[in-house]
């Protein structure tokens, strides 16, 4: 059941990413919803589930970018795997830590993506990372902080069920 939920979450993120997200774009910078969902899956499932989810979502994204088929799948698999590893850390309870990790994840993803896609032009990759990668990572981290904060409040508001 929970895998179905992840599937829908990822599907919604992919659809929103390619349609409605332009409405909340600041300049040309949009948050990376797919990575946000991957972060959530990694928190819940760890490296195993996150890597599969990362590969699948990346592959779907790749289908829309024929020139670099497999690139998104590769980057997202690696980043999701890393996020899944972080899930074991106690510091993940902190919202700020989560936001920072999300920021690093998006940045790492973009560095990987840009370096591979424009290889061997490393200067070009650096420019792209500074112009697009950093703002996207920041935007995604802020959005993630807000979402996790709201989710945390909802969790606290939920009454605790006593075990029989």
């Amino acid at each position, binding site marked *: 059941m929970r895998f179905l939920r992840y599937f829908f979450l990822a*599907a919604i993120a*992919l*659809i*929103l990413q*390619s*349609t*409605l997200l*332009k*409405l909340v774009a600041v300049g040309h910078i949009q948050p990376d919803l797919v990575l946000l969902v991957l972060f959530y899956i990694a928190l819940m499932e*760890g*490296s*195993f589930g996150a*890597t*599969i989810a*990362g*590969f699948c979502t*990346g*592959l*779907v994204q*790749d*289908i*829309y970018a*024929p020139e*670099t*088929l*497999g*690139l998104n*799948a*590769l980057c997202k*698999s*690696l980043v999701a*795997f890393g996020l*899944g590893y972080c899930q074991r850390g106690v510091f993940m309870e902190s919202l700020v830590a989560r936001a920072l990790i999300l920021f690093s994840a998006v940045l790492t993803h973009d560095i990987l993506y840009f370096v*591979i896609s424009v290889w061997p032009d490393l200067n070009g990759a650096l420019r792209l990372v500074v112009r697009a990668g950093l703002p996207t990572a920041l935007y995604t981290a802020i959005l993630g902080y807000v979402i996790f904060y709201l989710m945390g409040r909802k969790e606290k508001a939920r009454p605790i069920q006593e075990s029989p």
Partner: protein
Amino acid sequence: MSRLVFWTDRSRQFVVLSCAVIVSTVLLSIGRNQKTFVARAMTISILAPVQKSVSLASQFWDVYLQNRRLRRLNTELSLENQMLREAQLENLRLRQLLSFREREKLTSILLAEVIAREPSRQMNSILIGCGIRQGLEKNMSVVTSQGLVGRVVEVYPNTALVQILMDRNCPVSAIIHRSRVSGILTYEEGTAFGLKNVLWRMDVAKGDTVISSGLGGIFPKGLQLGWVNEVTSNPRELFKEIVVEPSVDFNSLEEVFVLLNTPEKVEEEQE
């Protein structure tokens, strides 16, 4: 066996990662081939309808925003249009007033704004925005380009009360412009006035213009009062019954002219 299971559990994430990396790398290396195109076409054909539906929501939002913007623009333009219409009417009115001034060759007249009307069903007076400080005195005539409106009955520092012809207590000595037949114009009812004291044999016809005669010493001579609308002659009656339609529309007075030279003053000046 248990060691194998443990190893598999711990390393399955690495296995998955390795598979993902290998497959991705292979995909990266193969580039565009026929299979990829088929897979891509299939995925697009599945995802495209969903994305189209979601895009529709986006389009609805755009239409909603555009609708709001256009409605706001519509309101602004409508208001501007109303203001321009009002300015046009005011322009027309002022032009008429100016032409009246030219026509009558009156130099000592004062333009006054109507600032209040009598708050009763029977409108007998209006309040204008000129008073003693502007040189107004009692019994000065008040006119528009259409004709005589009434006379000043009370004067205050910056305002004045004008008794208009629709007051039954404000009769005007009048004459028929064409035949010079004289009578007394008084308000009757509705918008109708009556011309009294005209003998049954006098020459009055429908459509004749009625003007002030200047008799009585309050209103100057020659100001237009209205037109004869109906004439009833009965030989058994001494006087004709004449209904006069006023030339001034008393319900839409906004600006009036006060004739600063009353007939008495004119006479005094002439003497």
